[in-house]
Protein backbone atom coordinates (compact mmCIF):
# COMPACT_ATOMS: atom_id res chain seq x y z
CA UNK A 1 0.00 0.00 0.00
CA UNK A 2 1.16 3.47 -0.83
CA UNK A 3 -0.34 6.54 0.75
CA UNK A 4 -0.30 9.79 -1.14
CA UNK A 5 -0.79 12.97 0.81
CA UNK A 6 -2.05 15.98 -1.07
CA UNK A 7 -1.18 18.39 1.70
CA UNK A 8 0.95 21.42 1.15
CA UNK A 9 4.63 20.55 1.23
CA UNK A 10 5.12 22.92 4.16
CA UNK A 11 3.08 20.46 6.24
CA UNK A 12 5.26 17.42 5.45
CA UNK A 13 7.38 17.65 8.57
CA UNK A 14 4.59 18.86 10.82
CA UNK A 15 0.98 17.71 10.32
CA UNK A 16 1.73 14.90 7.88
CA UNK A 17 4.52 13.50 10.03
CA UNK A 18 2.27 13.77 13.09
CA UNK A 19 -0.49 11.76 11.43
CA UNK A 20 2.01 9.09 10.35
CA UNK A 21 3.27 8.77 13.92
CA UNK A 22 -0.11 9.02 15.60
CA UNK A 23 -1.81 6.49 13.32
CA UNK A 24 1.27 4.25 13.38
CA UNK A 25 1.45 4.19 9.59
CA UNK A 26 4.17 1.86 8.36
CA UNK A 27 3.56 1.97 4.61
CA UNK A 28 5.32 4.31 2.22
CA UNK A 29 3.89 7.81 2.27
CA UNK A 30 4.43 10.25 -0.55
CA UNK A 31 3.45 13.88 -0.71
CA UNK A 32 2.23 15.02 -4.11
CA UNK A 33 2.67 18.75 -4.41
CA UNK A 34 2.21 19.24 -8.16
CA UNK A 35 -0.53 21.77 -7.46
CA UNK A 36 -0.59 23.68 -10.71
CA UNK A 37 -1.01 20.66 -12.96
CA UNK A 38 -3.98 19.07 -11.18
CA UNK A 39 -6.01 19.39 -14.35
CA UNK A 40 -3.44 17.12 -16.03
CA UNK A 41 -2.70 14.50 -13.42
CA UNK A 42 -6.19 14.00 -11.97
CA UNK A 43 -7.57 12.62 -15.27
CA UNK A 44 -4.28 10.74 -15.76
CA UNK A 45 -4.88 8.80 -12.52
CA UNK A 46 -8.43 8.03 -13.57
CA UNK A 47 -10.64 9.65 -16.18
CA UNK A 48 -13.68 9.34 -13.88
CA UNK A 49 -12.02 11.01 -10.91
CA UNK A 50 -13.57 14.41 -10.21
CA UNK A 51 -10.75 15.34 -7.84
CA UNK A 52 -12.66 14.70 -4.62
CA UNK A 53 -10.55 13.13 -1.87
CA UNK A 54 -10.09 10.67 -0.37
CA UNK A 55 -9.69 8.42 -3.39
CA UNK A 56 -8.27 4.92 -3.76
CA UNK A 57 -6.75 3.19 -6.78
CA UNK A 58 -5.94 -0.52 -7.10
CA UNK A 59 -3.14 -1.69 -9.33
CA UNK A 60 -2.01 -5.18 -10.27
CA UNK A 61 1.06 -5.67 -12.45
CA UNK A 62 0.99 -1.95 -13.06
CA UNK A 63 -2.55 -2.00 -14.39
CA UNK A 64 -5.31 -0.11 -12.63
CA UNK A 65 -8.11 -2.53 -11.80
CA UNK A 66 -10.35 -0.37 -9.67
CA UNK A 67 -10.80 3.17 -8.59
CA UNK A 68 -12.92 4.55 -5.79
CA UNK A 69 -13.71 8.19 -5.17
CA UNK A 70 -14.72 8.92 -1.58
CA UNK A 71 -14.36 7.03 1.66
CA UNK A 72 -14.25 3.26 1.99
CA UNK A 73 -15.06 1.33 5.14
CA UNK A 74 -12.56 -1.33 6.21
CA UNK A 75 -15.07 -3.94 5.06
CA UNK A 76 -15.51 -2.34 1.63
CA UNK A 77 -11.75 -2.06 1.27
CA UNK A 78 -11.26 -5.74 2.12
CA UNK A 79 -13.99 -6.77 -0.31
CA UNK A 80 -12.39 -4.74 -3.08
CA UNK A 81 -8.95 -6.19 -2.37
CA UNK A 82 -10.29 -9.76 -2.36
CA UNK A 83 -12.09 -9.15 -5.65
CA UNK A 84 -8.84 -8.27 -7.32
CA UNK A 85 -6.36 -10.65 -5.65
Amino acid at each position, binding site marked *: MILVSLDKKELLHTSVQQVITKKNITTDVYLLDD*IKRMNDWIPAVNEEWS*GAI*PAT*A*FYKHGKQLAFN*EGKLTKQELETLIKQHL
Partner: protein
Amino acid sequence: MKNKILTLILISSVAALACTPKNNTTTGDDEKPKQEATKTGYAIGDEATDFSMKNVDGKMVSLANYPDAKGFFVIFTCNHCPYALAYEQRIMDLDKKYAPLGYPVIAISPNDPALVPEDSYEEMQKLAAEKAYSFPYLIDEKQEIYPQYGATKTPHVFLLNKENGKNIVRYIGAIDDNYSDANDVDVKYAENAVDSLLAGEEIALNTTKAIGCSIKDKRNKK
Protein backbone atom coordinates in the same frame (compact mmCIF):
# COMPACT_ATOMS: atom_id res chain seq x y z
CA MET B 1 6.44 -2.98 -1.05
CA LYS B 2 7.75 -3.57 -4.55
CA ASN B 3 7.27 -7.33 -4.51
CA LYS B 4 3.61 -7.04 -3.56
CA ILE B 5 1.53 -7.87 -6.59
CA LEU B 6 -1.41 -5.77 -5.58
CA THR B 7 -0.72 -2.17 -4.93
CA LEU B 8 -3.20 0.05 -3.29
CA ILE B 9 -2.80 3.76 -3.57
CA LEU B 10 -4.77 5.86 -1.20
CA ILE B 11 -4.86 9.53 -1.92
CA SER B 12 -5.84 11.84 0.86
CA SER B 13 -4.60 14.69 2.97
CA VAL B 14 -4.14 15.50 6.60
CA ALA B 15 -6.56 18.29 5.98
CA ALA B 16 -9.13 15.79 4.78
CA LEU B 17 -8.41 13.47 7.70
CA ALA B 18 -8.75 16.35 10.10
CA CYS B 19 -12.18 17.19 8.79
CA THR B 20 -13.70 13.73 8.98
CA PRO B 21 -16.55 13.65 11.46
CA LYS B 22 -15.38 13.32 15.04
CA ASN B 23 -17.59 10.30 15.69
CA ASN B 24 -16.27 8.21 12.84
CA THR B 25 -14.24 6.00 15.13
CA THR B 26 -17.39 4.02 15.83
CA THR B 27 -18.19 1.49 13.18
CA GLY B 28 -21.87 1.23 14.07
CA ASP B 29 -23.17 2.86 10.95
CA ASP B 30 -20.86 0.91 8.66
CA GLU B 31 -23.24 -2.00 8.80
CA LYS B 32 -26.18 -0.06 7.46
CA PRO B 33 -27.11 -0.76 3.88
CA LYS B 34 -25.97 2.03 1.67
CA GLN B 35 -28.15 3.70 -0.85
CA GLU B 36 -25.85 4.41 -3.73
CA ALA B 37 -26.25 7.96 -4.93
CA THR B 38 -26.81 7.66 -8.64
CA LYS B 39 -24.17 9.36 -10.67
CA THR B 40 -25.88 12.26 -12.30
CA GLY B 41 -24.88 15.76 -13.14
CA TYR B 42 -24.67 18.28 -15.89
CA ALA B 43 -22.53 18.32 -18.97
CA ILE B 44 -21.59 21.50 -20.79
CA GLY B 45 -24.63 22.78 -22.68
CA ASP B 46 -27.22 21.28 -20.32
CA GLU B 47 -29.93 23.43 -18.81
CA ALA B 48 -29.41 23.88 -15.07
CA THR B 49 -32.34 23.61 -12.73
CA ASP B 50 -33.50 26.50 -10.63
CA PHE B 51 -33.92 25.92 -6.91
CA SER B 52 -35.23 27.51 -3.77
CA MET B 53 -32.82 27.22 -0.86
CA LYS B 54 -32.45 28.97 2.44
CA ASN B 55 -29.90 31.76 2.59
CA VAL B 56 -27.94 32.69 5.72
CA ASP B 57 -30.32 35.65 6.15
CA GLY B 58 -33.28 33.27 6.47
CA LYS B 59 -34.75 34.14 3.07
CA MET B 60 -35.25 31.66 0.28
CA VAL B 61 -33.18 32.30 -2.85
CA SER B 62 -33.81 31.19 -6.43
CA LEU B 63 -32.07 31.99 -9.68
CA ALA B 64 -35.41 33.47 -10.77
CA ASN B 65 -34.86 36.23 -8.16
CA TYR B 66 -32.23 37.70 -10.51
CA PRO B 67 -34.13 38.75 -13.64
CA ASP B 68 -31.34 41.10 -14.70
CA ALA B 69 -28.50 38.58 -14.35
CA LYS B 70 -26.79 37.37 -17.52
CA GLY B 71 -25.83 34.21 -15.70
CA PHE B 72 -24.42 32.89 -12.45
CA PHE B 73 -21.42 31.41 -10.77
CA VAL B 74 -23.09 28.61 -8.81
CA ILE B 75 -20.32 27.52 -6.44
CA PHE B 76 -20.62 24.53 -4.13
CA THR B 77 -18.45 25.38 -1.15
CA CYS B 78 -18.54 25.00 2.61
CA ASN B 79 -17.13 26.10 5.93
CA HIS B 80 -14.94 23.18 6.89
CA CYS B 81 -12.97 22.17 3.80
CA PRO B 82 -9.41 23.53 3.61
CA TYR B 83 -9.63 23.76 -0.19
CA ALA B 84 -12.87 25.75 0.06
CA LEU B 85 -11.34 28.01 2.69
CA ALA B 86 -8.27 28.56 0.55
CA TYR B 87 -10.59 29.85 -2.18
CA GLU B 88 -12.90 31.86 0.05
CA GLN B 89 -11.36 35.24 -0.72
CA ARG B 90 -11.25 34.44 -4.43
CA ILE B 91 -14.95 33.52 -4.38
CA MET B 92 -15.67 36.86 -2.71
CA ASP B 93 -13.54 38.62 -5.34
CA LEU B 94 -15.36 36.83 -8.18
CA ASP B 95 -18.67 38.23 -6.95
CA LYS B 96 -17.28 41.75 -6.49
CA LYS B 97 -15.85 41.72 -10.00
CA TYR B 98 -18.57 39.89 -11.95
CA ALA B 99 -21.86 40.62 -10.17
CA PRO B 100 -21.79 44.19 -11.59
CA LEU B 101 -21.12 42.66 -15.03
CA GLY B 102 -24.18 40.41 -14.72
CA TYR B 103 -22.70 37.21 -13.28
CA PRO B 104 -23.25 37.08 -9.50
CA VAL B 105 -21.96 34.30 -7.26
CA ILE B 106 -24.48 31.96 -5.63
CA ALA B 107 -22.67 29.89 -3.00
CA ILE B 108 -24.23 26.63 -1.83
CA SER B 109 -23.13 24.41 1.03
CA PRO B 110 -23.99 20.83 0.07
CA ASN B 111 -22.80 18.98 3.17
CA ASP B 112 -24.94 17.24 5.78
CA PRO B 113 -24.32 19.09 9.07
CA ALA B 114 -25.04 15.86 10.93
CA LEU B 115 -21.79 14.57 9.43
CA VAL B 116 -19.88 17.85 9.58
CA PRO B 117 -21.02 20.08 12.47
CA GLU B 118 -18.83 22.91 11.14
CA ASP B 119 -21.11 23.10 8.13
CA SER B 120 -24.27 23.70 10.14
CA TYR B 121 -26.60 26.51 9.12
CA GLU B 122 -25.60 28.48 12.23
CA GLU B 123 -21.88 28.13 11.42
CA MET B 124 -22.57 29.19 7.84
CA GLN B 125 -24.36 32.28 9.17
CA LYS B 126 -21.37 33.08 11.37
CA LEU B 127 -18.84 32.76 8.56
CA ALA B 128 -20.92 34.78 6.10
CA ALA B 129 -21.38 37.55 8.67
CA GLU B 130 -17.73 37.54 9.74
CA LYS B 131 -16.51 37.83 6.14
CA ALA B 132 -19.41 40.05 5.04
CA TYR B 133 -20.27 37.89 2.03
CA SER B 134 -21.72 40.02 -0.75
CA PHE B 135 -23.48 36.96 -2.20
CA PRO B 136 -26.04 34.46 -0.89
CA TYR B 137 -24.71 31.43 0.96
CA LEU B 138 -27.40 28.77 0.70
CA ILE B 139 -27.81 25.46 2.43
CA ASP B 140 -28.79 22.43 0.34
CA GLU B 141 -30.79 21.05 3.26
CA LYS B 142 -32.37 18.17 1.37
CA GLN B 143 -29.14 17.48 -0.51
CA GLU B 144 -31.18 17.37 -3.69
CA ILE B 145 -29.60 20.11 -5.72
CA TYR B 146 -25.91 19.17 -5.62
CA PRO B 147 -26.51 15.71 -7.18
CA GLN B 148 -28.57 17.32 -9.95
CA TYR B 149 -25.68 19.62 -10.77
CA GLY B 150 -23.21 16.79 -10.37
CA ALA B 151 -21.13 18.53 -7.73
CA THR B 152 -18.82 16.05 -6.03
CA LYS B 153 -16.58 18.24 -3.93
CA THR B 154 -16.00 21.66 -2.45
CA PRO B 155 -15.21 23.99 -4.04
CA HIS B 156 -16.91 23.10 -7.33
CA VAL B 157 -17.87 25.83 -9.81
CA PHE B 158 -20.75 25.76 -12.31
CA LEU B 159 -20.89 28.81 -14.56
CA LEU B 160 -24.37 29.29 -15.97
CA ASN B 161 -25.28 31.54 -18.88
CA LYS B 162 -28.83 32.74 -19.46
CA GLU B 163 -29.77 31.87 -23.02
CA ASN B 164 -33.37 32.29 -24.24
CA GLY B 165 -34.55 32.35 -20.64
CA LYS B 166 -32.73 29.13 -19.75
CA ASN B 167 -29.68 28.78 -17.49
CA ILE B 168 -27.19 26.86 -19.60
CA VAL B 169 -24.09 25.26 -18.05
CA ARG B 170 -21.03 26.73 -19.78
CA TYR B 171 -18.14 25.88 -17.46
CA ILE B 172 -17.58 23.24 -14.76
CA GLY B 173 -14.56 22.93 -12.53
CA ALA B 174 -12.01 24.89 -10.59
CA ILE B 175 -11.57 28.60 -10.00
CA ASP B 176 -7.93 28.64 -11.05
CA ASP B 177 -4.82 26.46 -11.17
CA ASN B 178 -3.37 27.13 -7.72
CA TYR B 179 -5.53 26.63 -4.64
CA SER B 180 -2.58 27.18 -2.36
CA ASP B 181 -1.32 30.56 -3.51
CA ALA B 182 -3.56 33.14 -5.16
CA ASN B 183 -0.45 35.15 -6.07
CA ASP B 184 1.02 32.29 -8.08
CA VAL B 185 -1.86 31.53 -10.43
CA ASP B 186 -1.12 31.00 -14.12
CA VAL B 187 -4.61 30.30 -15.44
CA LYS B 188 -7.80 31.80 -14.00
CA TYR B 189 -10.14 29.14 -15.42
CA ALA B 190 -13.42 30.56 -14.08
CA GLU B 191 -12.62 34.18 -14.95
CA ASN B 192 -11.45 33.20 -18.44
CA ALA B 193 -14.72 31.35 -18.97
CA VAL B 194 -16.95 34.26 -17.96
CA ASP B 195 -14.74 36.74 -19.85
CA SER B 196 -15.32 34.65 -22.98
CA LEU B 197 -19.09 34.76 -22.39
CA LEU B 198 -18.96 38.52 -21.89
CA ALA B 199 -16.96 38.88 -25.12
CA GLY B 200 -19.37 36.58 -26.97
CA GLU B 201 -16.60 34.07 -27.64
CA GLU B 202 -16.26 30.31 -27.26
CA ILE B 203 -14.91 29.20 -23.89
CA ALA B 204 -11.52 27.66 -24.65
CA LEU B 205 -11.37 25.41 -21.57
CA ASN B 206 -14.87 24.56 -20.34
CA THR B 207 -14.06 21.75 -17.89
CA THR B 208 -11.24 21.45 -15.38
CA LYS B 209 -10.35 19.07 -12.56
CA ALA B 210 -8.97 20.04 -9.18
CA ILE B 211 -8.66 18.46 -5.77
CA GLY B 212 -11.45 19.19 -3.30
CA CYS B 213 -13.16 17.68 -0.27
CA SER B 214 -15.77 15.06 -1.09
CA ILE B 215 -19.34 16.17 -0.34
CA LYS B 216 -20.52 14.68 2.94
CA ASP B 217 -23.76 12.78 2.43
CA LYS B 218 -25.02 9.77 4.42
CA ARG B 219 -26.25 8.19 1.20
CA ASN B 220 -22.73 8.06 -0.23
CA LYS B 221 -20.25 5.35 0.56
CA LYS B 222 -18.43 6.28 3.71
